[in-house]
């Protein structure tokens, strides 16, 4: 049996009655029947059918599973707008210190001063990086930060006796933006993109009115382009009484070079799992702190970490402030994804001011270099860049000519890249670029990696010119080949029958 075939058993299929891993402590206390402690009608009959497996086989099972994943520590992972940068192991080490990992969230502030000070320092650092005075660390991820920002916007307007109905976002925005808008009870209005890849100013002017609560913008946007009209955009929105929201998914382009606060944004979310090196974990955890302007501050979520001056030369004291009468309230339990804060603060300490600026500079250099490499030869012909100018930290190619001339779609190219040992770029996004490939190399990749990726693209295109069906059937070397996603949606099997 091959390794791959062996690995497709689930943990339940490795189960056998009587096997076990856990050895629990002795009860040490009287052990009456449970019915004497809890009414029988509230008790469970049969226990949940969890697998029965001894520890050695559990370890083997999950190790085998792990080998069926591609990961950033193994290879190049240029997913656009995802910022797959190196995850320093130092950060894992400091997050695992018992003073962090085994600190109960309800520990009284006076016995959690180190944690609160660290959170306060991270708030201050993010405020400085974003160019805005106040930060709440509470949101759990970017989309949670977006929802927070929209609820802050709602509270801000309500406080002035206004109720507005619409939120504007460009057609290039991340899918989370419109989804968050709906959850926050607003109507999304799409703003078009102009021929240079920025917000279409005429369309924006036509859509701005006193019903607009907020404009959500990613800058640089998902085309990897900085919107040069940002000052004018901000002036327009502010003049109409709206707030300006910055989707920080692309902050990795501008750290230490430009600040959303200076651009006129009122609310910014920061993806600590993108720009600040928290590992993505196969889909989280992350954290999405928000930085806000003075006029938004009264509405920030509670509790908020605050610093009190210590008197008589004593140390400053940190606390959780619950007394925030205008606060939108809680967005989640306890104080936020603290373990993520530890990692990101360690990252900021490691790099420092110059290091952060250098990281963004190198991210932009790497993106432009890879873009230049892919503008040559076959890639240049089959995969033209969607907006041909210098990009920031990412860029978007269009597979439209490739599809038309070779019959190979962007999806096929992506799948063939798997055989070459690369994670494909983000595909079919942003929506306004046909057959889009969105490529973000990040600063932690070597020139050699970028060259190898460009060479692989060239080789795949050369192959496609001769044998297009090769890409259309790809991949060949992965643990499984193309999967039937339609079946998984039409007749979903989402748990194992036991």
């Amino acid at each position, binding site marked *: 049996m091959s390794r791959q075939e062996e690995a497709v058993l689930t943990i339940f299929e490795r189960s056998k009655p009587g*096997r076990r891993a856990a050895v629990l402590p002795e009860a040490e206390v009287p052990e009456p029947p449970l019915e004497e402690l809890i009414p029988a009608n509230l*008790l469970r009959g049969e226990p949940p059918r969890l697998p029965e497996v001894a520890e050695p086989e559990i370890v083997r099972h999950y190790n085998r599973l792990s080998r069926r994943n591609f990961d950033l520590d193994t290879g190049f992972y240029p997913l656009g707008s995802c910022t797959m940068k190196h995850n320093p192991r130092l950060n894992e080490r*400091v997050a695992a210190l018992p003073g962090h990992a085994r600190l109960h969230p309800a520990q009284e502030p006076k016995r959690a001063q180190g944690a609160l000070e660290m959170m306060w320092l991270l708030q201050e650092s993010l405020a400085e990086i974003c160019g805005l005075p106040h930060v709440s660390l509470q949101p759990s991820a970017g989309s949670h930060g977006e929802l927070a920002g929209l609820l802050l916007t709602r509270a801000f307007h309500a406080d002035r006796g206004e109720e507005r109905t619409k939120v504007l976002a460009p057609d290039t925005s991340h899918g989370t933006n419109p989804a968050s808008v709906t959850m926050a009870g607003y109507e999304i209005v799409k703003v078009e993109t102009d021929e240079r890849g920025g917000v279409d100013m005429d369309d924006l002017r036509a859509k701005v009115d006193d019903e607009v609560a907020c404009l959500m913008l990613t800058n640089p946007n998902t085309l990897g382009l900085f919107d040069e009209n940002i000052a004018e955009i901000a002036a327009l929105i502010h003049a109409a009484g709206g707030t300006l929201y910055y989707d920080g998914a692309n902050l990795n382009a501008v750290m230490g070079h430009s600040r959303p606060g200076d651009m006129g944004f009122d609310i910014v979310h920061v993806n600590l799992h993108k720009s600040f090196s928290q590992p993505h974990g196969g889909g989280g955890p992350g954290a999405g702190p928000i930085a806000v302007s003075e006029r938004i501050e009264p509405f920030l979520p509670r509790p908020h970490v605050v610093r009190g001056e210590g008197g008589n030369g004593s140390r400053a004291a940190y606390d959780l402030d619950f007394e925030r009468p205008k606060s939108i309230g809680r967005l989640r339990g306890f104080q936020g994804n603290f373990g993520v804060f530890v990692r990101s603060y360690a990252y900021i*300490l490691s790099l420092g001011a110059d290091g952060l600026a250098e990281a963004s500079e190198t991210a932009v250099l790497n993106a432009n270099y890879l873009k230049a490499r892919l503008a040559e030869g076959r890639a240049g012909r089959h995969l033209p860049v969607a907006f041909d100018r210098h990009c920031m930290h990412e860029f978007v190619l269009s597979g439209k000519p490739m599809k038309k001339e070779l019959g190979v779609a962007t999806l096929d190219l992506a799948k063939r890249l798997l055989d070459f040992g690369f994670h494909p770029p983000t595909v079919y996004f942003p929506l306004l670029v046909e057959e889009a490939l969105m490529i973000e190399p990040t600063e932690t990749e070597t020139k050699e990696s970028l060259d190898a990726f460009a060479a692989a693209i060239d080789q795949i295109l050369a192959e496609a010119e001769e044998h297009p069906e090769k890409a259309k059937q790809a991949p060949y070397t992965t643990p499984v080949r193309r999967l*039937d996603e339609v079946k998984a949606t039409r007749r979903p099997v989402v748990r194992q029958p036991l």
Partner: protein
Amino acid sequence: MTRYTSATPEDRAEMLAAIGVESTAELFAQIPAPLRLEEPPALPGGMSEAGVYERLAELAARNVDCERQVCFLGAGMYDHYVPAIVDAITQRSEFLTPYTPYQPEISQGGLQAMFEFQTMMSELTGLPVSNAGLYEGPSSVASAAYLAIGATKGRRRFVVSRGLHPHSRETLATYCEGFDAAIEEVGLDDGATDPGALATAVDGETAAVFLQSPNFLGAIEDVEALGAAAREHGALLVVAVDPMTLGVLKPPGECGADIALGEGQPLGNRLDFGGPSFGFFCGSEALIRRMPGRIAGETDDVDGRRGFVLALQTREQHIRREKATHNICTAQALNALAATIHLAWLGREGFRELGELLVRRTAYARERLAAVEGVELLHGAPVARELALRLAAPVDRVLDRCAERGIAAGYPLGREYPEHEDGLLVAITERRTKAQIDALADALGAAVAAEAVTV
């Protein structure tokens, strides 16, 4: 060159030449000059790896964690023992460093782990469909509310037990500003949700009824009986549960719940001062296309081999945008993996035994603590792993005195339950030995005696 970048001066020169620019300043010129920073941000310079370690270790040392104090704090997050294999496996690069599995052919490990997680959570809750996890408990409650509005054709009223975690009730209230929905709270009677008040509160406009069992005061609710009001009016019954009690307590799925959800931290996740953990979210078949978050599904590849994909993606924001069932994108996959490994390690028998152990140690603690002078039970309802006490002395002073003995005696109820200003919530895990419970009884007795309010 910082320690995480590799571009040498030669690399840079070659790359700039290939781009056709003199310097990276030309690339940044697309940012209008007034918006370009002249100076780097006002942050300290970078530090050595050893220096960063020392700085964070110094901060960590100023926290009183569960290795330095015997912890009876709970309130949703608990000091359970996390088996070593959880750390070993979740720290593997292959699980730690990938993105969300958008390319299933090279993400089978993560996807299969999600499928196993879903199966386990479905078993625990007794409901057929589980997603792959949400952020944490309280926001999962708010997510259920959002689902309920859609599932009841736009009803915008929620009936919520006061036994639901205060953080969940507050989070729900925050979200409801966006949902334009109203919340009616139903009080507790001797620790458990008042059935008469609940029946009165639920009406034909109610989208969902929210219960928690064991509730925040530790009381096990009769979910089945309470749920009748929801069924009668066509409202969804949403039940928040402590997963560690589901080896012994009747699962929500057998009590008529449409949705069972909760805080996942007790399963394989460390305390981390409150996060990251995960929220679990299970529902009936009828709700599968309205579920929030990722769901892994089993399917076949072109060669007929078994494989797993993200199923029902048409619910999700990256496909459906403003029509998505939720805005969630990055969630807590690694935390759900930790839970999966922990549950596999506990296994069928171990999970039940752990639940029994919690119930028996809690029963012992209840009897032992209630016998202390100046300490009495706050309610008489049955409990599983957490119990509420009333103290005849100011709770904050009692906590300080216990802390001097190295004990975090529990969670003070006063802030969130002003009617229980004298209340203390005490949580039990398998790590809290009989000797520690006895020490808590002694410490509480001494502290209450010392601080007792003299009449």
